[in-house]
């Protein structure tokens, strides 16, 4: 089974029924698997803060949400993460493409990569980093943890984990 399919299976097993995505080449397989999964309502968003608003609404409406995005989004969503997701204590698994790490071909991506963990740390967001193939084994436990503590939680997935470009 592909890693993308395994990730979506973990979403489904943890009751996630509402997933918003902002496109990413590295996460293209996961986004396609989300789209194919009949038990998930897939709603692409135009910007990640919009997506977090949708997820907040879906959660209050009774559906477990998740967002799939690039690490550049951390720069876009700080205000939303602190004044909506954290302030109202809502769970939000964030599956993040960690661009700008080893094997990155685009220099500009590194500029955001060097701030990614620092920003997440500053925001007190629990952060997990999938670096080696097989690290996805922890996803099920991370999702359970997210919905146990009602916090946004970051799952960074880098190029080494995905097998390069």
């Amino acid at each position, binding site marked *: 089974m592909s890693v993308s399919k395994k990730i979506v299976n973990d979403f489904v097993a943890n009751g996630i029924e509402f997933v918003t995505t902002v496109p990413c080449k590295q996460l293209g397989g996961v986004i396609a698997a989300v789209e194919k999964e009949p038990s998930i309502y897939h709603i692409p968003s135009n910007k990640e803060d919009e*997506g977090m*608003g*949708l997820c907040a*609404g879906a959660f209050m409406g009774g559906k477990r949400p998740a967002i799939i995005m690039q690490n550049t989004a951390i720069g876009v969503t700080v*205000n939303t993460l602190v004044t909506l997701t954290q302030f109202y204590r809502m769970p939000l698994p964030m599956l993040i493409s960690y661009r700008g790490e080893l094997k990155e071909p685009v220099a500009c991506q590194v500029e955001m990569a060097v701030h990614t963990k620092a920003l997440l740390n500053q925001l007190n967001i629990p952060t997990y980093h999938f670096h080696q193939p097989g690290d996805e084994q922890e996803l099920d436990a991370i999702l359970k943890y997210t919905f146990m503590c009602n916090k946004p939680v970051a799952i960074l997935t880098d190029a080494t984990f995905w097998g390069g470009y």
Partner: protein
Amino acid sequence: MIRSEIIRDIAPILRDQLVVCNIGLPSQELHMIDDQASTFYMLGTMGLSSSIGLGVALAQQKTVISIDGDGSVLTNLGTLPTIANNVADNFILLIIDNGSYGSTGDQPTYAGKKTSLTAVARACGCENVIECHAEETGVVLQAAIDSKVMTVIVAKCESGNIKVPVITKDPVVIRDRFMNEVVRTDE
């Protein structure tokens, strides 16, 4: 008519619905006029009232009304294509368009100049967009609720504010009582 007068007018209609209310003065006004557990007051995060409301509407069956402003919709203009392409017939977006950023001192918005949010919403693919005068808001809103078709309402009004207290309720309390209303069944 200014925004607070529209809110006073429509409060009896909002009472029985799930409402997501925009940050700043709109939430403070509605909270002062007719506080309901079924209203989710935004205490921060300008621009996301429509996104939160659409999320609630897509996740369950009850009617959801997002009260938004012209300035807030301009902040999150990407919301309109998302709404148009993810039709939830239990969702109503009510944009109270006073042509200004009311909560920050009535600085003019582009919606009060050359930009028509009604035309923008239609161009984004929203199928039922109704522009109305402030005085008609209640009638148009009630018709939208009864129609059970996703509707965007742009209610044009004058800018201007009244003095209102800030909301001091804890955000988790606001969220919890709203979620209880989502699942409440009428006996």
